């Protein structure tokens, strides 16, 4: 299959950048790009850096470097899966470069899951967490309401392009204040469980897991960057929770 190497390189660097933006680990990005490049007979070197992808290939006996900034898109398992499927589609020889570009464009412009569905499901998930940690029905109800309000606030503030760290702080504060209703109004037998689980929806689990995965394959820069981002968000979440507890004067500290 004859492929224009420059066009292929531009496609691959874009593909790798979007995979990174959607929350893929470095090993997945490397394997997918390797798979596609092997089919197209492209020799390349790729460096995955925090925030950008650097792709070097030979075009007309001359080395060319393509750098693409990773898009600021939310983590999406759907796009991640579809992009991986695209790499298999290309590897199976079913797609030309133009078909691949068209499929790639459709994947990256696909809409995110309905925000109201995500809102309700996240609230139910946090309610489930409360049950797992031993909460009673009233604690579960409090956590559901706290998560519903906090998650909706998170969606609104992110739509307004507020800094994510501030968003986490504010949402953790409001969720924790709602969750203190168990203490203040003497609701239920396990108000401490409600207070502890009300902010779990804000924990950045995927960046932590991805950072460990990247650490294991030797991508230390990306691993450290992801870990620090996640740690910073967790810190902001903790500050919001602490502010809520201190404001309500629960004297837990």
């Amino acid at each position: 299959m004859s492929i224009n190497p420059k066009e292929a390189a531009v496609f691959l660097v874009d593909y790798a950048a979007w995979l990174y933006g959607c929350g893929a680990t470095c090993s997945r990005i490397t394997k997918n790009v390797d798979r596609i490049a092997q089919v197209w007979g492209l020799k390349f070197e790729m460096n995955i850096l925090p925030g950008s992808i650097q792709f070097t290939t030979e075009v007309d006996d001359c080395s060319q470097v393509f750098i693409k900034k990773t898009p600021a898109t939310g983590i999406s398992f759907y796009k991640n899966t579809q992009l991986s499927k695209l790499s298999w589609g290309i590897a199976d020889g079913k797609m030309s470069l133009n078909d691949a570009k068209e499929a790639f464009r459709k994947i990256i412009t696909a809409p995110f899951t309905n925000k109201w569905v995500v809102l309700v499901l996240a609230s139910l998930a946090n309610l489930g967490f409360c049950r797992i940690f031993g909460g009673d029905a009233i604690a579960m109800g409090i956590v559901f309401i706290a998560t519903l309000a906090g998650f909706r606030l998170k969606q609104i503030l992110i739509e307004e392009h507020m800094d994510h760290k501030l968003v986490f702080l504010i949402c953790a504060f409001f969720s924790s204040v709602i969750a203190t209703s168990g203490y203040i109004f003497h609701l239920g037998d396990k108000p401490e469980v409600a207070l502890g689980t009300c902010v779990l929806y804000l924990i950045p689990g995927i960046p932590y897991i991805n950072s460990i995965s990247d650490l294991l394959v030797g991508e230390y820069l990306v691993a450290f960057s992801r870990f620090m981002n996640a740690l910073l968000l967790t810190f902001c979440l903790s500050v919001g929770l602490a502010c809520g507890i201190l404001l309500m004067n629960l004297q837990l500290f």
Partner: protein
Amino acid sequence: MDNQVAMWSLVMMVMVAMFIIRSAVNARRGHGNHKLFEMGDEFSMYDLGEDEL
């Protein structure tokens, strides 16, 4: 206990007020009006047109 209830109620009211204001701002912008607050006075109704002058 009373202080806690008062503080809790205040925080809830702030949150509800934020939601309401945001809905109001979005509704106003959705109707194509980019002015969020309109300042007017009643004296504009006494402005006479050229024919009346």
